[in-house]
Each structure stands twice: as C-alpha cells, then as structure tokens.
C-alpha cells in the first residue's frame, strides 16, 4: 500500500480580500489553462454582508508538484494562505 500525504490549505478569512487569484492559479497548475473551474480552492464573497466563504479540495491538491513553491502562496498578496502537511495516510 502507498503512503500519501494530504495538504491542508488554510485561508485566513480576516486577511482574504476575495480576489480569487489563488483559485485561478490553482486551476492553471492543474489544467494549464486560466479559469475559475477545476480548482482546489473556491472563494465566494457575499456582497450582502462582506463575508467570504472558502472551500479547499484536499484530494485534488498536489502541493504544486513541479513548481518551486505552491502557486497559491505566491499569488496571495495579503498573505492569507498557509499550508500544512497532514500526517501520512495509507491509500488502499
């Protein structure tokens, strides 16, 4: 059985500005195209109350293998993103 590591991308909601750069750059890494679809990250700004809702799909995230640094970190100007490596789990 293989060991795989999962990564947790955490977005500090207080710092996030809702710009979706992380969402697009993640989709670019996974697909080679610029889009907001097919990303590990989803950012939604609620214009009624200014809340920001974020989701992260850890199954899709490969920590930007073949990049020097995870791209979402590089393209987050308010530095709202942090990444932690979760304990290894066994894959069936």
């Amino acid at each position: 059985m293989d060991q795989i590591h999962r990564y947790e991308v955490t977005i500090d909601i207080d710092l996030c500005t809702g710009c979706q750069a992380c969402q697009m750059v993640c989709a670019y890494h996974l697909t080679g195209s610029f889009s907001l679809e097919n990303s590990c990250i989803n950012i939604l700004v609620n214009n009624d109350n200014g809340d920001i809702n974020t989701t992260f799909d850890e199954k899709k995230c490969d920590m930007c293998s073949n990049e020097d640094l995870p791209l979402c970190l590089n393209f987050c100007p308010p530095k709202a993103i942090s990444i932690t490596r979760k304990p290894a789990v066994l894959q069936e």
Partner: protein
Amino acid sequence: MKILDGKVAWIDLSSKQVKMEDTSIYQQYVGGRGIGSYIVFQEVPKGTDPLSEANVLTFNTGLLTGTLAPASARLSICTKNVSSQGYTFASSGSFFGLELKLAGIDHVIVKGKASTPVYIFINDGKIEIREADHLWGKDTWKTECSIRNELGDPQIRVGSIGQAGENLVNMACIIFDRNRAAGWGGCGAVMGSKNLKAIAVRGTGSIDIDSPKEFMDFMTDIWKRFDNSQTVKLFRKYANYGTSGGGGVLGTTPQSVRNMNDEYLPPEKTVNIHPQIFKEKYEKRRLGCFGCPIYCSAFYEIHEGKYKGLKLEALKTNVYRALGSNLDITDRETILKANDLIDRYGMNCDSLSAVIAWAIEIFEKGIIDKETTQGLELRWGDSDLLIELITQIANRNGFGKILADGVYKASLKIGKGSERYAMHIKKHGMCEQAVRMNKGWALGLMTASIAGGHLCGAPNTEQRMMSRTEGENYFGVATAGDGNAYAGKGKLVSWFEKYKILADLTGLCSFTTYWIDTGLVGPADFAHMINLATGWTLSGEDLLQIGERIYNIEKAFNTIHGGFGRSDDMPHQKLTNIPVRSGPFKGSVIDPEKWEGMLDEYYESHGWDVTTGLQTRNCLEKLKLYEVIERLEDTEKLID
C-alpha cells in the same frame, strides 16, 4: 479558448438580432478601450444625440483579462458622452469583465433601442435578450439580486442601471457588482435610453495563452514588485480613501472644498474623517478586484446611529471629496449613506457633486431662492439636504428636475450669471482636487478626451513629489515632481495620455502602472506580457505608438462631434482667479499666461496645431489614421 479566439457580440435591441464576429479583425487596436474607441468612432454618425438609438454602448474587456496579469479584469465602457457630446470611456473594476471573458466574449456592442425594458444575459457565449419590465424601477442592488434569483445562479455577474439611468439623468452611470461604477460621461443614461436595464453574464470557460510557463514566470516577478512598492504598501495599509481622502494620512493632501472654491481643509476640520477612524469604526474587511495585488477597497458596516446596519463596499477618494469636502460635509456616516444611495440609484459622484455644489453656491449668493428650490434651503454642510437632493435628482422630482440635467445645462436654464459658478470641463461636471497646485494634473484634466476626469493624461508625479532624476529618467521631464512648474508638463501629459491607454487596452488597473510607482508595470512590461500571451512581437515603443493612435481617434471624435478646439482646453475662471486660502499650498493658483505656454508644449508633443489645438494631416498620416483623415476633411477641421 485561445486568448485570441474571443468574439465581439453585436446586439441590436431594435431588431433583437445578435451578430458575432472575431475580435481578431480589430487586432491593430489590441483590446479594451482601443477596440471600443475605434468602434464608437466608426459607428456613431456626426450629430447623433447620445440618448438616441443611433448611439452605441460598448462593453470592452482587456486583452489580458482572464489571465493572472495583475488586476487585469477592468472593463471599459465606450460611447458618446451625454454631457460633452464628444467621446467618453468609463472604467470599472469588479469581476464582470473576467466573467464576460470566460464566457467567450471580449466585447459587447449594443445598438438601437428595445421597445420595452430588457436585459441581456450572456451564458457561456449564448446570448439572450430577456424581458425586464419587472426590473424597471428597481435600484442596482435589487436588480442584481432579482436577476440571480430569476436565473437560479448566485455567481452571475451583473452590470445595471438604477432609477437615475432609467430617468436619463445626466450623471447616471452603470454599476457592476453593486458598488463598482462605470462613472463617466452619462453612460448610465445611454443605457437607459436603450431601455436596457442590465447586462448579466456567466462564464465557465478558460483562457489558453501562447507561452504559459514563461508568462507565469514573468507574473511571479511582476507580482513581487507590488510587495516592494512603498506606494502599494500605503494602499494596502489605508485603502484608497486613506491615501488621499479626507486630507490623507497626514491631513495635508489637497481636497475640493465648497464647489472647488478652495483646495485645502486644515487638519482640525478633517479630524473626524481621518482614514484611521473609518478603518477602526466601520471596516469589516479589505476587498480587491479580481486578481488584484493592491486590494484598495474595503467592506464597511455602520453599527450605531441613524444609519445603523448600513453595509457597503467603500470608500473611494473621489466619492469622499464629491459627497464630503466639496459640499463641506464632514459627517462620516452621511458620506457612507450617500455613497450607498448613489451606487443604488447609479450616479457618478463627481458630476453629481458639481451640480449640487453649484446649486448651494448660487443659493448662497442669492441667484436662486426657495421658490426655485421648491422650498429647500440650500446650505453648505447640510447632511439631510444631500440625502434629499440625491433622491430628487435620481427620480427627477422637485428641484431635482433641474439638477438632473447636469451642472452645465442647469446653469443655462437658471442663467442670471449662475453659469460663472458651474464647474465643468467641456460641459461635463467637475469635482477634482489638487488642481491649482499641480499644473500637470490640471492640464491632464482639461485636455482629457473624455471631458475631464483624471484617467487620461493627468500624471500623479507631482502628488508623489517625484525627484528630478526619476522624472528625467522615466519621462524625459525633470520637473515631473514639481507641482508649481509649467515647463515640461505638456510633454508629460501627452506621454501619460498614450501610456495609460496601455492599461485600458489590456484590462489592467491604473494602480498597477507608473501612475503610482515607476517600479510597477511600464511600457516594456506591457509588451512582454502581451507577447507571451499572444505570440506577438511588440515592443514598449510599439505599444506607445498604438496608444497615440487610439488617443488621436478619440480626439478626432471630439472634434467632429463636440467641435472642441484650443479654447475648450482652458481652466475654469475659479482656478485662475481664486488662490488656495491656507495650508501648505496657500496662494496656489493657475497663471493663464503660463497655461498657454504649457498648452503649446502639449499640442506640439502630440504633433497637433498649436494655434487651434486641432490635429494635423501630417500627424495623422504618420499614424496611418487614414479613416480619421477622411472624416476630419468633411468637417474642415483638419489642419494642413
């Protein structure tokens, strides 16, 4: 979708026909405002009433919108200017431009007029014209909510008009994402005149570029520049308002005061509207446009008092001075409430302020009385009055019926010498700051192709007090940072006029450019980004030449439609007769003789005729603008 495979959608609201063409046929104009300006020039016949079916309303994404070029989703709305009768573009931040690009559409050209209210829905390239009777009468926020509910998708982006646009108010604008205005030139009234309530879009596509790896390596470098910029740090810390609203962080930044009768308020007057107080009392979070490394906006909430519970994205410097200092209002919550109202009704803050401030001034001088104002007492600093007048103007009732036509027409209607106090540039209402003390800035306002506003050639170099070395190295103008200097400013403004177009061609925000920091995106950087995205081989100089071409198209439109010449590029009499009364800029005023010299230099820099301010055949032949030459020959306003 490959980046060059997008479409131009021509939508005729009279016939309800939709025609698509490839954006690539307009390649020489690159994108955004470039293509929009060319189409307006081509499509709108001389003498067209901006509020008639024959005008076109164009929505133009930038060439690099949909990529990770920084803050590259700005949208340019190009059309005929309701006030000046010449050209206008209006620029809006928001996410609408991105969504449109991801739907496969680069430009939307709206012609004709619907017989009843409609809205346009673009759904991944499929275009519908839908009935909008149920939306007519709603403000822009309710319109957005209604459309999203009706179409069952909360991610639909909407640009709409409120009651002001429906009522063809001179100052009406188009609002995107609730609080992002395409403010200039009465474009909201143009939209209303077509019975077009809104344009909604949903795009789930993708953009492919020519050299993605190299592009992203370059973007990594470009984005880092923002982290290293002192000016960007200021924006990030204090937001747009903090950099120069309310006197700025130090309380010394110029402001418009009482219908631009003055340009400085002492710190003791602005203590209650200091940026830090807004941040502490109301700021819930910071916000940015799509892909923006500067995040100059914020979400505010009022927690107590008369406007408890009010929530909105705010506060731009322009909005503060228009609804604050120019009316002598220093009540923070009034300014935010007024901001909320003008976003909902859809009105441009500058030209709205110009007409309200004018009305207060002429009431104070006894030129009008309560009979004219239908019972209203007009006073400086009256918060309730501001709220009342905004509502009257948007709905064209009460005294608002006169004011709704804008400051120029209102002053002609009232007469009695009131025209002297109407602050406008080529008939478009004006509310600006730092005009008397920064001569280049002033020149950029007066010569702007859109009749005022600071998004054409007005340089920020003077406010930043740029060093002589930096001015010389970047612009060939050692005096770029000296507000008092007239020499060199003609050259500086003409350079910024063509350079800033590069931002509007690509969709990037002005705040990513040399306008705020020469460490950010310059002409060669624009060229490199474009080349990596498209496979083209442009240089920075090539792009500046394209910018010059586009500016000349806009200038020609103004000559043909507005009849403007040298006399229209002169400053208002207040700016030459009334010096700044106090503060670090005490005594600043515009010297008319020196202005003439600066204007000469400006026209020479463009290759235009110095005596008339008009374009020359020689200049247009060098730019290969043969269609422009032909059209100008018909007007006999082409100088040989």
